[in-house]
């Protein structure tokens, strides 16, 4: 212990470098732990249902059973749509002792067209929703102007919505995309202060709400208000004990919010996936960085270790000394990394809130009790990581004969040891094999991409293991050209690299890792986006697309459009979710088809089966869902999928298609399982193929009058839609990916600077010696410049090669071509940033060393 503080006081540079690397790792662990915790504890406070004591819903989970390879497994997953309840349950609830009121609630996603044609639909996190006026006490809403809806053509709007839309009693509104007459605003109702429910609620008469809801005798949930003398928990227990509510979910307290925002559970799951996969990537980089810096730190004190071994320190003592030092550093870094980690996690959560990737009320997971655990886990992981990296680094120093250790204090090994060489070659060969496997094995695109990322990791490990060999190769290749340009400084730089290859290798590997990760992630993302856009264009064969802003078009729109002159085929698409049975499948994005055959308006590149005559009892799946690790099925086989509200759907696989990027991975008829199980009956868009000899202009003109029936109805040509989809796709993917890329770039950049600064400080002795024998500042800086050039060039080339291999494999799997989506601006930014950081990290300590020497 005292040795640690002595070293800290008298030779702080290696410890500082190691501490910074461990601190980065600790921050990453904290951010990942906090995001995973946030995902797992994600709950939204009850807002619209704030006044309820208890909320009763159907079972919002479904057990999806899959039977593959004679192995049955069951996944329990959350449903994105309400599993409806009979409204008779409200009467049963009202009869429970202690219940004041039990209200069956229906909810209708909608958008309002107000004066001037403006359409209001709320936000993704808080979409406008219609309810029966009987739901008003559940918040509670109170009329602040006008009166409650008394006729089927009257609505009451929330006060926040009224302010945003400039609505007052007497104004008229229409439901966007619905073939319905206009409604008169009868009143404005406010929720209690601070409750944002008033920003998104629209109330109809109970009968009108039931009609719009479209499921007679059913409701989404039942809100229960308790009598003043009955507590919510007691009431919840009574309802649970009542056999009428067997199989239903009875929620009280904070859990009521989950019934109000079903997406929260899905968001939480998405966040969990992002945190786990991105956290893993970032953690891995952090581990590489820690391993590199710990190894460098041990190498910098090799002389001390060798001397101690010579005068009688046992290998165990040397290991223990290093282990104690690293345990202290790891623990301290863990503790120090906690607060920045929590801050970054909360920033990330806030960013995701702002981009509507999470419910607006989500906060990063920093519960005080669990925080203690996160601190301990972070510190513990810091210690373990440091110990493992240190053990590997110090093992050799402790095992080597002291004479050899003393000899190596002056010169380093110029080639990796045989075991390291073999391990490095195995990793490189493994990486290449994984790339080939990704290309030739019958895997789904997502599996191929995952394999390509594992390939990147294998290549990265290989590069790290073969660092000294790669440096030797680079030195050999650059010897001639460098000698041509610079006789003294360049040769000195090469000599330094030749004699201390491990130091150079650590620096080069840090550069290569930065380039490899940022390059691969950026360009894989760009290629994926581009592939999705291209595929979207190839997929859409309809001439025109009809849509309405907000919640889409009413179901009647498809037949209305189909009946218009000049329309050949009209097919409605409703985005929904299905649960295809295979182990580990959380959900499958799907499209539900209304109207004609999808084959007429979409070219999904069906590889097996056909979409002709697609209808009830059918399902089509993408090749992603039918890969070896997904559902084991073929065309003609039947399976039981589950619809968005948990209804089982026994269907025959009629087609398997390839073009699913930016589209659903399953296609079902809207009338699946009798219809009404998609979560929303609204049609997202209607794809139209004109009758023969009808132009787009004629078609658009023919459909335009329908806007009178369906407010907000918009007709767009294929080109416009493809471009809009491309923009949407980019916008949707950018925040999450930019966040991940930003974190990785920042981490790689910090690691790069830290490692290079450590490596440069180690050159203190040789710089001072050269200074003493008469080298001028200019010559020494020139030598440093050449070293920067050589290290940067080697790192950039090695990093770019590994990244390029991965990008090419991904490109080939996504586009069947070898040309990735390249643009030179990001290439220049990555290379320029790496060169700038490298220069700063090498020149600053060099200038400092020379200045300190001259002053001394």
């Amino acid at each position, binding site marked *: 212990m005292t040795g640690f503080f*002595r*070293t800290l*006081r*008298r*030779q702080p540079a290696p410890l500082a470098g190691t501490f910074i690397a461990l601190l980065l790792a600790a921050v990453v662990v904290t951010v990942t732990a906090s995001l995973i915790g946030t995902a797992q504890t994600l709950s939204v406070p009850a807002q619209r249902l704030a006044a309820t004591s208890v909320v009763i819903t159907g079972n919002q989970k479904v057990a999806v059973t899959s039977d593959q390879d004679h192995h049955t497994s069951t996944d329990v997953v959350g449903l994105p749509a309400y599993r409806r309840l009979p409204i008779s349950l409200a009467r049963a609830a009202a009869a429970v002792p202690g219940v004041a009121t039990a209200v069956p609630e229906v909810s209708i996603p909608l958008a309002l067209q107000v004066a001037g044609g403006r359409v209001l639909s709320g936000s993704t996190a808080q979409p406008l929703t219609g309810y029966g006026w009987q739901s008003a006490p559940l918040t509670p809403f109170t009329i602040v102007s006008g009166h409650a809806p008394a006729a089927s053509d009257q609505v009451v709007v929330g006060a926040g919505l009224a302010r945003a839309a400039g609505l007052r009693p007497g104004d008229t509104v229409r439901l966007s995309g619905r073939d319905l007459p206009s409604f008169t605003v009868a009143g404005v109702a406010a929720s209690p202060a601070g409750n944002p429910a008033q920003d998104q609620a629209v109330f109809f008469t109970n009968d009108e709400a039931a009609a719009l809801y479209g499921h007679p005798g059913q409701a989404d949930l039942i809100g229960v208000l308790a009598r003043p003398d009955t507590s919510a928990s007691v009431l919840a227990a009574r309802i649970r004990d009542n056999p009428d509510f067997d199989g239903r979910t009875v929620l009280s307290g904070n859990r009521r919010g989950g019934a109000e925002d079903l997406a929260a559970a899905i968001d939480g799951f998405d966040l969990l996936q992002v945190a786990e996969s991105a956290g893993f990537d970032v953690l891995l980089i952090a581990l590489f960085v820690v391993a590199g810096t710990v190894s460098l730190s041990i190498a910098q004190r090799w*002389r*001390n270790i*060798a*001397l*101690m*071994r*010579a*005068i*009688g*320190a*046992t*290998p*165990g*003592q040397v290991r223990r000394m290093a282990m104690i030092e690293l345990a202290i550093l790891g623990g301290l870094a863990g503790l120090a990394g906690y607060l920045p980690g929590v801050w970054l996690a909360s920033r990330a959560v806030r960013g995701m809130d702002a981009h509507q990737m999470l419910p607006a009320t989500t906060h990063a997971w920093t519960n005080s009790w669990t925080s203690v655990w996160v601190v301990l886990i972070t510190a513990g992981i810091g210690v373990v990581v440091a110990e493992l990296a240190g053990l590997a680094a110090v093992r050799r120093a402790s*095992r080597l*004969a*002291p*004479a*050899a250790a*003393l000899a190596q*204090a002056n010169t380093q090994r110029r080639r990796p040891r045989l075991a390291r060489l073999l391990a490095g070659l195995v990793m490189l060969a493994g990486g290449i094999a994984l790339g080939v496997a990704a290309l030739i094995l019958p895997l789904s695109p997502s599996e191929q991409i995952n394999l390509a990322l594992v390939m990147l990791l294998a290549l990265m490990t290989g590069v790290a293991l073969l660092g000294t060999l790669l440096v030797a190769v680079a030195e050999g290749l650059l010897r001639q050209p460098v000698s041509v340009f610079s006789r003294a400084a360049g040769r000195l730089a090469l000599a330094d690299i030749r004699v201390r290859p491990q130091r150079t290798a650590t620096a080069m590997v840090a550069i290569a890792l930065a380039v490899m990760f940022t390059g691969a992630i950026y360009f894989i993302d760009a290629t994926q986006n581009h592939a999705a856009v291209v595929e979207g264009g190839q997929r859409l064969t309809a001439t025109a697309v009809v849509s309405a802003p907000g919640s889409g078009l009413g179901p009647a729109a498809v037949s209305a459009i189909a009946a218009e002159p000049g329309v050949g085929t009209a097919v409605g698409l409703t985005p929904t979710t299905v649960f295809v049975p295979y182990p580990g499948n959380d959900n499958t994005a799907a499209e539900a088809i209304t109207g004609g055959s999808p084959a007429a308006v979409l070219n999904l590149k069906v590889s097996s089966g056909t979409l002709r005559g697609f209808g009830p009892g059918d399902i089509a799946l993408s090749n992603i869902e039918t890969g070896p690790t997904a559902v084991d099925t073929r065309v003609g086989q039947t399976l039981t999928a589950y619809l968005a509200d948990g209804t089982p759907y026994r269907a025959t696989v009629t087609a398997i298609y390839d073009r699913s990027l930016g589209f659903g991975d399953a296609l079902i008829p809207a009338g699946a399982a009798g219809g009404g199980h998609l979560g929303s009956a609204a049609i997202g868009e209607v794809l139209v193929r004109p009758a023969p000899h009808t132009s787009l202009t004629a078609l658009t003109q023919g459909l335009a009058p329908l806007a009178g029936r369906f407010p907000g109805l918009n007709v767009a040509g294929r080109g416009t839609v493809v471009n809009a989809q491309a923009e949407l796709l980019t916008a949707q993917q950018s925040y999450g990916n930019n966040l991940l890329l930003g974190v990785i770039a920042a981490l790689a950049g910090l690691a790069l600077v830290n490692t290079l600064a450590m490596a440069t400080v180690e050159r203190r002795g040789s710089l001072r010696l050269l200074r003493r024998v008469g080298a001028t500042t200019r010559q020494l800086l020139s030598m440093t410049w050449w070293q920067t050039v050589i290290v940067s060039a080697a790192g950039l080339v090695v990093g770019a090669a590994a990244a390029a291999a991965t990008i090419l494999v991904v490109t080939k799997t996504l586009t069947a071509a070898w040309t990735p989506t390249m643009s030179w601006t990001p290439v220049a930014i990555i290379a320029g940033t790496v060169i700038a950081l490298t220069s700063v990290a090498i020149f600053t300590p060099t200038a400092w060393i020379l200045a300190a020497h001259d002053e001394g």
Partner: protein
Amino acid sequence: MVGLSTQRVLTRRGEPTFEGGPAAGRLESVSKHYGRRDGDALDGVSIAFPRATLTAVMGLSGSGKSTLLQCASGLDRPSRGRVWLGGEEITRMRRRRLALLRRRKVGFVFQELNLVPTLTVAENIALPLRLDGRPFDWDDIAGAAGQVGITPLLGRLPDRLSGGQQQRVAIARALITRPEVVFADEPTAALDPYTSEVVLDLLRRAVDELGQTVVVVTHNPMVAGYADQAVVLAHGRIAETRTAPDPAELGQILRRLGEAESR
């Protein structure tokens, strides 16, 4: 106490009987090679270091002197042959036992890389005791420092010491555990003649006053004046052996070897 006197203290013990008493260290037909392409750095060397004597191992650069010291002291293992140290055979001794033996029975003084730069002079001297987990008194450390004349330097870090001061710290560290054998590798190579004499005086007194065995590897013929026996190595083999060696004669031997080498 050894002061900074310029007067040489030559307290020969007369003609030692090398074949007689048990040696503190012994090499038997020891060879060492480092790589397949390199020749033998040591080639079948046999030599004994009798107790309480000072042996000078001499030779030109590259003759195998340092390799001999490393094999004899357990810093390295021979490729062939056997080595005894402190009454135990160390040829195939396990790393941990060998480290313990070095710590308890051997002291080292190197030409350079002698001191741990993050430790003060006092801490450097105490290091072998610390490593051995032995309780010690800082007065003992001060006493050892006093014996080599560096008491005022106890709180300094090595980078604030001259070469001669560093060597004296190394000698104090080598002697603090009262080791049976002290190995010194070119301890005077970087020192001026005056400081070299001081260092050699200290090593000689370790033999005469503490009964320790000292092996000094050097190309400096002056060391022979302090030695009880001298061994001259050439091309990894023993070329000459002298008891009660004469520095002038050894100087001539080395010169002759050098001339032969340059031819």
